[in-house]
């Protein structure tokens, strides 16, 4: 969407245009839901996003366009989910469920051990990989099962493009720990792809 398109959309929203609101919901609802789920979990996510839309409707008149509409909406959903998370005391330890998935991948010299080295994938582009419904389903399931903090960091960083400083404010861990969590989450998703591409 160009800046002009976005400005026009915001003006329509501020003028109370219902079709403009439907368009914005079409464009961002699923993403916002994903962010909410990553922070607060499935049970409260729908409620948080609905609440976000209501806040957006009542606050759009004051929206100064210092950020994009998407960033503004994402911030609202993050703030609401974070508040709810604190209220629900849904704190997990840094990485409680983490198990090193590649303990056997390296030999005593820290080189790849046989037969553990990475195996080529049959599909060699993300688009081709995502064409498989089965793989997409497996990845979604894995994302849901990731330890809370790994999932939050990965969704906010890799899917929503937030920086580590913003993410650290949400989950209250250091930037260096966030980077570790992100790497672990990515490795977990990569492992799902490995297993799909090279079944035992």
């Amino acid at each position, binding site marked *: 969407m160009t800046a002009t398109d976005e400005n026009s959309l915001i003006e329509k929203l501020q003028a109370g245009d219902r079709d403009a609101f439907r368009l914005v919901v079409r464009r961002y609802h699923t993403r916002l839901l994903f962010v909410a789920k990553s922070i607060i979990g499935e049970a409260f996510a729908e409620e948080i996003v*609905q609440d976000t839309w209501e806040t957006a409707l009542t606050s759009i008149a004051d929206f100064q366009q210092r950020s994009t509409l998407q960033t503004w909406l994402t911030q609202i959903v993050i703030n609401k989910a974070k508040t709810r998370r604190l209220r629900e005391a849904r704190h997990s330890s840094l990485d409680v469920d983490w198990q090193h998935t590649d303990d056997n991948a390296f030999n005593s010299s820290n080189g790849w051990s046989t037969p553990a080295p990475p195996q080529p994938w049959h599909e060699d582009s993300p688009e081709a990989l995502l064409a498989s419904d089965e793989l997409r389903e497996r990845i*979604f399931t894995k994302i849901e099962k990731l330890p809370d903090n790994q999932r939050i960091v990965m969704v906010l960083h890799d899917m929503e493009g937030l920086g580590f400083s913003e993410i650290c404010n949400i989950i209250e861990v250091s930037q260096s720990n966030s*980077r570790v969590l992100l790497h672990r989450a*990515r490795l977990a998703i990569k492992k799902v792809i490995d297993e799909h591409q090279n079944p035992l």
Partner: protein
Amino acid sequence: MKHMLSCKDIHDRGSQFIDGNTGMLTKVGMLMHILMCGNCRLFIRQLRQTVVLIKKMSEQSDSDQDLDAIADKILCKHKHL
């Protein structure tokens, strides 16, 4: 740098490398290792693809019909619109 980085180092720092979050010495060390090690080259390539794939997954959306129903439900509470 006291010694060459190992394959495990490349594995453990892969995300830092592809995100550009390593120091210069580490970056050079990793590049040298990756240049010489086919397994690590493949690992880094697959990790990059994984990150792109994760990003693309967020672009998937529900049907317009379902989303319009959600929008209408919210609009019902805001009659002034």
